[in-house]
C-alpha cells in the first residue's frame, strides 16, 4: 500500500477533483430527490397557488438535475484521466525498480507466469482508486454531509440515519470482505489443484496416451473442477449477502428514520414537507452502497496484489556495482580461477573450475543439459556472482568494474532470448541503436535470415509480436542470434545458438563460425555436432569442472 500512497500523493490534484465531483454528483442526487419530495408535499398541502412559492423549488429541481448530469460526466472523466496517469506511473516505477534486480533469483520469479502475474497485479492496482478508494471516500464524506443536513432539519433522526448508513456502506461490506477472505483461500487452493491436474494432463499427454490412461486424467480434472465449483459456491453464498445487506440496510434505515420522523411530526416539531424531504434524502444517499459493495469484493484481491508488488519493489539487488569501479581492459585474457558456484542451498553446479581464454579464441563447451553450461556463461556477465574463486578479464576481477561496462564488453545470446513486440529493425537495434540497414542485413546474413527478411513486403519494418508477423521458433532464434552478432562487444557468448535450426543450416552456420565472429572471442555452449576447425578447443563440462575434449 505504501507504493499506492506515494503514487496517489503525486497525482493528488486530479484525484481530489475526481473525488469532489463524485461527492457533488451524490449531493445533487440526494438534493434533487429530497427537494422534490419537499416541494411535492408542500404543494399538496398548499391551499392556493397564491400562497405557495413555486419558483424557488422548481428552479432548485431543475438546477440539481443539471448539476447531477454535469457532475457525473466530469467525475467519470476526471477519475479516468487521473487513473490513466497513475497507470503510467505504476508501470514506469516497477520497470525502473526491476532493472537492477534482474535476473531475479528466487524460484517464484523464475516461473513463466511470474510476468503474467505481475502484469495482472499491476492491472488490479490501476483500478484501485476508481473501484475502491473513491466509493469509500465518497461514502464517508456523504455521511458527514447527511449528518449535517439532518442535524439542521430533523435532529432526532441523526443517530438512526447515520448508524444505518454507516453499517450498510462501511461495516457490512467490511464484514463480507473478511468472510470472503477465509473462503477465498479454499478457492485459490482448489484452483491451483485444478491447474496442476490440467497441466499433468497436457504435459503428460503423450505418456497418458501411450499408457491408455487418458480417461483417468480426465476423471481427475473433472474432480478438481468439481472441487473448484464447491469452493466457489461456498464463497458465493457469502458474497450473496452483500446485495441482501444493501436492501436490508437501506430499507431498515428508511423505516427507522420514518418512524422517528412520524413521532416528531406528531409532536409538531417538523412540518410534513420537511419530513418527506428528509426521508427521501436519506433514501437517496444509499446509491453509493452499490459501487462500495462491488469495490469491497475487489479489496481482498487488490491488497494481495499490492503486497506482492510492494515486496518486489522492496527487494535488494543481489549483484551490486563497486563503489569505485575500474575500466574494463580493452583486450586481455579471460581467466576463470577455481570458480565454484552453488545453486540455491545445496545444488552444486561448479567446483574449482579453471579456464583461460585468450583474446580472439573460439571455444566450445559441451556437456549434459543441466551440467552448468548456461551458468558458466552467466557468471562471466555477473548475472550471478561466483561463490568462490574469481573471474578476471585482462587481470581485472569482474566484480571491480561497472556492470554496464562489463555488459558492453561481453554479449550473450541466452537460451530464452525473446523477440520483442516491435519491428525487425527495432529488435536488432537493441544491440546497436546506431546500426544502419547494411549492418543489419550483414548480421541477418550471418544468422541465415536475410533471405526471409528480404522476401517480406515490409522488410526490416515488418511488425513482430501481437497483431504482427509471427516467426517460427527457428526464425525467432536466428533473429536473436543476429541481434547478438550486431553487438559491438568484444566477447560473444552463444548459448545453444543453433537450437531450432534445421540440420543443414546448423552445419552451415557452425562451419562459418570464424567469419561470423569476425575475430572476436567466442564461447559456444552447444549440443550440436561441431565440424572440424569450427572452434579452437572443445571442453566438456562434467561434475562442475572442464576437461579438454579430443
Amino acid at each position, binding site marked *: 500500500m505504501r507504493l499506492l500512497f506515494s503514487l496517489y500523493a503525486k497525482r493528488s490534484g486530479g484525484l481530489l477533483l475526481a473525488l469532489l465531483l463524485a461527492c457533488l454528483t451524490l449531493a445533487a442526487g440526494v438534493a434533487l430527490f429530497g427537494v*422534490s419530495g419537499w*416541494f*411535492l*408535499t408542500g*404543494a*399538496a398541502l398548499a391551499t*392556493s*397557488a397564491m400562497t405557495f412559492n*413555486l419558483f424557488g*423549488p*422548481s428552479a432548485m*429541481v431543475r438546477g440539481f438535475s443539471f448539476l*447531477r448530469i454535469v457532475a457525473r460526466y466530469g467525475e*467519470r*472523466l476526471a477519475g479516468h484521466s487521473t487513473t*490513466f496517469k497513475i497507470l*503510467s506511473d505504476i508501470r514506469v516505477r516497477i520497470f*525502473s525498480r*526491476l*532493472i537492477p534486480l534482474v535476473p531475479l533469483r528466487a524460484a517464484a520469479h523464475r516461473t513463466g507466469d511470474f*510476468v503474467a502475474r*505481475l502484469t495482472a497485479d499491476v492491472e488490479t492496482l490501476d483500478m484501485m482508486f476508481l473501484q475502491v478508494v473513491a466509493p469509500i471516500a465518497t461514502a464517508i464524506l456523504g455521511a458527514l454531509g447527511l449528518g449535517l443536513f439532518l442535524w439542521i432539519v430533523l435532529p432526532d433522526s441523526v443517530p438512526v440515519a447515520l448508524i444505518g448508513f454507516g453499517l450498510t456502506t462501511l461495516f457490512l461490506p467490511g464484514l463480507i470482505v473478511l468472510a470472503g477472505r477465509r473462503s477465498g483461500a479454499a478457492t485459490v487452493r482448489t484452483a491451483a489443484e*485444478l491447474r*496442476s491436474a490440467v*497441466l499433468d494432463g*497436457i504435459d503428460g*499427454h*503423450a*505418456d497418458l*496416451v*501411450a499408457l491408455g*490412461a487418458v480417461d*483417468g486424467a*480426465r476423471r481427475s480434472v473433472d474432480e478438481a*473442477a*468439481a472441487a473448484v*465449483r464447491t469452493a*466457489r459456491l461456498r464463497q458465493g*453464498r457469502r458474497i*450473496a*449477502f452483500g446485495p*441482501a445487506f444493501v*436492501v*436490508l440496510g437501506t*430499507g431498515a434505515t428508511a423505516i427507522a428514520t420514518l418512524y422517528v420522523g412520524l413521532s416528531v411530526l406528531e409532536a409538531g416539531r417538523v412540518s*410534513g414537507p420537511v*419530513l*418527506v424531504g428528509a426521508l427521501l434524502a436519506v433514501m*437517496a444517499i444509499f446509491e453509493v452502497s*452499490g459501487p462500495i459493495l*462491488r469495490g469491497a469484493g475487489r479489496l481482498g484481491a487488490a491488497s494481495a496484489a499490492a503486497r506482492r508488488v510492494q515486496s518486489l519493489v522492496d527487494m535488494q539487488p543481489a549483484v551490486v556495482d563497486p563503489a569505485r569501479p575500474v575500466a574494463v581492459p580493452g583486450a586481455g585474457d579471460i581467466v576463470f580461477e577455481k570458480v565454484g558456484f552453488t545453486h540455491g542451498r545445496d545444488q552444486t553446479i561448479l567446483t574449482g573450475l579453471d579456464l583461460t581464454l585468450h583474446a580472439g579464441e573460439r571455444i566450445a563447451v559441451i556437456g549434459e543439459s543441466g551440467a552448468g553450461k548456461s551458468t558458466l556463461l552467466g557468471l562471466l556477465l555477473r548475472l550471478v556472482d561466483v561463490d568462490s574463486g574469481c573471474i578476471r578479464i585482462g587481470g581485472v576481477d569482474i566484480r571491480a568494474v561497472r556492470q*554496464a561496462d562489463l*555488459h558492453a564488453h561481453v554479449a550473450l545470446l541466452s537460451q530464452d532470448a525473446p523477440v*520483442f513486440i516491435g*519491428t525487425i529493425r527495432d529488435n536488432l537495434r*537493441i544491440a546497436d541503436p546506431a546500426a544502419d540497414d547494411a549492418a543489419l542485413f550483414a548480421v541477418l546474413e550471418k544468422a541465415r535470415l536475410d533471405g526471409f527478411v528480404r522476401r517480406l513486403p515490409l522488410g526490416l519494418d515488418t511488425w513482430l*509480436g501481437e497483431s504482427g508477423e509471427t516467426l517460427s521458433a527457428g526464425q525467432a532464434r536466428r533473429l536473436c542470434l543476429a541481434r547478438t552478432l550486431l553487438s559491438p562487444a568484444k566477447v560473444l557468448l552463444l548459448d545453444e545458438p543453433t537450437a531450432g535450426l534445421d540440420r*543443414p543450416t546448423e552445419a552451415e552456420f557452425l562451419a562459418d563460425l570464424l567469419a561470423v565472429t569476425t575475430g572476436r572471442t567466442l564461447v559456444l555452449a552447444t*549440443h550440436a*555436432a561441431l565440424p572440424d576447425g569450427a572452434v579452437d578447443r572443445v571442453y566438456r563440462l562434467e561434475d562442475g569442472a572442464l576437461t579438454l575434449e579430443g
Partner: protein
Amino acid sequence: MNTVEPATGAKPARTNPVMMKWLKARGRVGRRAMGLAIVVPLVSACLTVAQAYLLATILHRAIVDQAPTASQATAVLGLAGLVALRALLAWIGEAAGIRAAEDIKQAIRKDLFAALMRRGPDWMRQRASGELASQILDQVEALDGYFSRFVPAMIAAAVVPVAIAIGLMPVDLVVGLLLLVTAPLIPLFMALAGWGAEAASRQHLTALSRLSGMFADRLRGLLVLKLFGRAEDEIVRVRGASDEFATRTLAVLRIAFLSSAVLEFFAALGVAGVALYVGLTYIGLLDLRGAELGLQAGLFCLLMAPEVYMPLRTLAAHYHDRASAKAAVTNLAAAFGSLPAVDEAIATPGVPWAPRGAIAVTARHLTVDTPDRGAIFADAMLDIEASDSVALLGPSGIGKSTLIEVLARLRGHQGRVELGGVALADIDEAALRRHVAALGQRSRLFHGTIASNIRLGRVDATDAELRAAAERACVLDFADRLPEGLDTPIGERGRGLSGGEAQRVALARIFLRDPALVLLDEPTAYLDRETEARVMRAVLDFAAGRTLLIATHSMAVAQLMNRICEIDGQRRIVSRVVAPTSLVMQGVA
C-alpha cells in the same frame, strides 16, 4: 523501439455470432439456477412497487389525515416485512446467479479438457502447456460475470421499466404515459447506453490488454535489454506507450461516458418531471386529470420514478462482464482452433486387434516432416521380425525418438506402417495401447506418489506386483532410501526426481504391462554403467517373447540386441552388423 501499433496492424479479433451462440448454448447447463436468477429480480421489482405504495400511504395518513403514529405501527411493520423479503430475494437471486455460472464453467472446463485430450500428440507438441492450462482456468473464469450478473441484469432492464410504467397508469395516467412514452425509447436508450458502455469497456480492455502485453513483453525481455545497456531507454518507451494509450482511450471515453450522462439525464428528468407535474397539479396550475390527486398517489409516483431507471443502471454497471466474456470466448476459440461442440460424439472405434505373442513391425515409404526441423525420414523402410530385439543408434536429434513416436502412433507420418500385419492407422486405440508399450525420452511424472505413478501402467496391479516392477526397474535403489519409500510424494509439491530416477519410474510402469511390442527411448540415459547393466538385464528378461526396439546412445546397450539399426544421412533406416567406435563419440552430448 517503436511503441505505436504497426501501420498495417490488424484489428483485434472480433467475436463472431457463432461464438456468442456457443456461449448461449453453454448457458443451458445452468438453466434451472439461471431461471431463478432471472425471475428473482422481477419479483423483487414488484415488491419494490408495493413498498413504495405502502410508504406513500403511511406518509399521506400522517401528514394529510394526521393519523397518530401508534395507529401506523401495522403499516410500518408491513414495510419492514417487505424489506426483509426483498433482502431475502436479493440473496437468493445473487446465489442463484453464482450457482448458474459455476455449473456452466464446470461443464465448459470438463468439455474443453476432454476435447484437449482427444487431440493428437502432434497438436499438443506445438502448444505451450501453461498457455493451454490458463485457457481452461482463467479464460473460462472470465465467463463468470456474464452468466452470474449480466444475463439477469439484461432481462430485468428489458422488462422492469415497461412494467412499472404500465403499472403506474391506473394511479396517474399522465405519469404512466410520461414513462410509457419514454418506454419505446427505453430500448433505444438501452442500446445507446449499451453501445456506449460496451464501446468504452471494449476500448478500455483492448487498450489495457495491449499496454499490458507490451509491458509484459518488456519485462520478460528486461534482462536482454539490460545486458545490451538499453533498459534505461526503455523506461521512456514504457512511459510513452502508457501515455499514448491513455490519451487515445480517453478520447474514446469522452464520448462513451455520454451514455452514463444520458442515463443520469433520464433519471433526473424522471424525478424532476414527476415532481413538477404533480406539484403543479396540486396547486391547480395544471389540470390534466379529471379527478383529485392525493398526496399518496403523488408521492407514490415520485418514489417510483427513479426505480424505472434503476435496472438500466445495474445493466450499465455489468456491461463490462459481457465484453470480458466475449474476449474470453475469442481467446478460447483461437487457442483451441475451434470451440468444442456442446455434445461431442465419442471417437469411432478402430479395427479390433488381439495379437498373440510377439508381433512384427514393418514400415514402407515412411516420411516424416516437422515444421521446425524439416524432413526427418524420407521414404524410409524398416523391418523387425516378431520377437526380434533391435537397437537404434545415431547422434542425438537424428530422429530416433521420432521413429519410436511414429511406431507408438504418437506422431503423424506418411507411408504405411504395419504392426503384426495390420495397418497402424486402423488399429483400435484401446487395443493398440494394450499391446504396445512405449517409454518416451522424458517421461512425465504426475502429481502423486512414486507408487501411484508406477500404477499408471496397470491400475489393478497389486502392491506386490507393483513392488516387483519397481525392483526390476531399479526404482527401489533410491525409493527404499526415502523415509516414505514408494509412497513418497513427487511432482510439483513433492520431491523432485532426477532424470535417471524419473526414467526408471516410467520403465517400471511398462514392467506392469503385458505388451507384444516394447518401444524404449533411451531407457538408460543418465544411469551409471552398473545400474545400466542391471536395468538392461531386467529389460531383456521382460522382452523375452516380445518384440523390442531400443533407441540408445550406449554401445553397451546396443550390443545386447540381436541387431543394430541406424538412421543415415539420406534420412533412411539402415541395418548394420558392426558398429564403428566413432559412433560412440558422436552419440554423446
